[in-house]
């Protein structure tokens, strides 16, 4: 799966989970898993690496991790933060 994550790179993300898009003024909130995924995407991590990070940090199996990850991608896509290409 490939993304256009140019918007993502502009986001201001606080440790508390508040995410601000400086171009649109939109404010989102996220839990710690979402923050981990966003941070990893911003830093250009591969999807498999992100999945493994979630598995390690949250003690879940790979299938659950992937399902949650793709759910989150879907939310990011519908809010315009990333675009599937």
């Amino acid at each position, binding site marked *: 799966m490939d993304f256009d994550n140019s918007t993502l790179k502009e986001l201001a993300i606080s440790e508390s989970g508040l995410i*601000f898009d*400086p*171009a*649109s*003024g939109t*404010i989102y909130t996220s839990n710690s898993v979402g923050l981990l995924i966003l941070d990893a995407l911003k830093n250009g991590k591969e999807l498999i690496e992100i999945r493994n990070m979630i598995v390690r940090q949250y003690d879940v199996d790979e299938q659950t991790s992937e399902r949650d990850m793709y759910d989150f991608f879907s939310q990011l896509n519908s809010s315009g933060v990333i675009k599937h290409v």
Partner: protein
Amino acid sequence: MYNIAITGLNAGDTPAPGVPVIRCLTEHPDWAESVCGMAYDALESGALDRNLVSSVYLLPYPKSGREALLERLTYIHEVEHLDVIIPNLDAELPNFIYLRDRLADMGIKTFLPSEEQFNRRSKVNLNKLAEDIGINTPKTRLITDPTHIDVRMDELPVMVKGLYYEAKIAYTLDEVRHHVYTIAAMWGYPVLIQQFIEGEEYNAAAVGDGKGNLLAVAGMKKLVFTDKGKGWACISIINEGLNQLTEQIVSALSWPGALEVEAIKSKKDGKFYLIELNPRFAAWIYLAKAAGINLPYLYLQLALGRQVTEKLEYRSGVVFTNYTTNLITDLDRISTLFTEGEINYALTI
């Protein structure tokens, strides 16, 4: 010390820009001037705040005409020795624009557009302007006769707007008629029917140099709305598309002074649609100052013919929210303003 006259002092539920403009100016580190308030009503809340203005003078309402305004300004100038006037209300601007050369002859500086520039950005002419300069705007037409409100069912919803103030959305033909009548009763005809663009509203405050250059721009998005659709809480943004639109407009109009751009980013096609161009400072201008860019001070430097030294960058993510408070004043002050049409706070207890 310069004496700067400022209008638009009402700071009610739909605040005018005067009070935030004064706050931007007087909080500037280099500020050493005084502010003369000019109001249309003795109960304009900012006019009653002696910490905000040194003196206040009532002006004749814009409908009284240009000569009445000139006569009043001549009197105020004799007492106050004004250096600059910054008008902040849409409805008063045509009179001030008409008088700007005569004010200049009196030694009062302004930084206003010409009548032609002012009219080109009017809601009535927005379609033509957009066509001329190649930008998008919702289709707009005028209602001048209440018996000919020619809106079709398939056009709904539409925005119904007054020439200077008011904008209401209408979902039914009954609502269209109702809004046309109520807006016309308050502001007269024409009333405008504007295509409704679904999307998010973005606003920009700008200052142009009058030679086609955009000197500074600050962007804003509303976070909390009043029941009139005004921004109660807003956040500063930096949006390239909005900035480009603003630059295109300022350049095409060779706009001098303050301008507010209101645009909708369409949900359907992702493009910006210009919905209004306000020929003055925005009422949220204090947000831009808080974010780092003091547009009223920049404007003042330009009006005084000084070299611009203002910083032109600002931060996104700065939030402001209006909040109401109570100003306590004596009935005597209001009486003085009502009966004498002026008050000098330095001479009052």
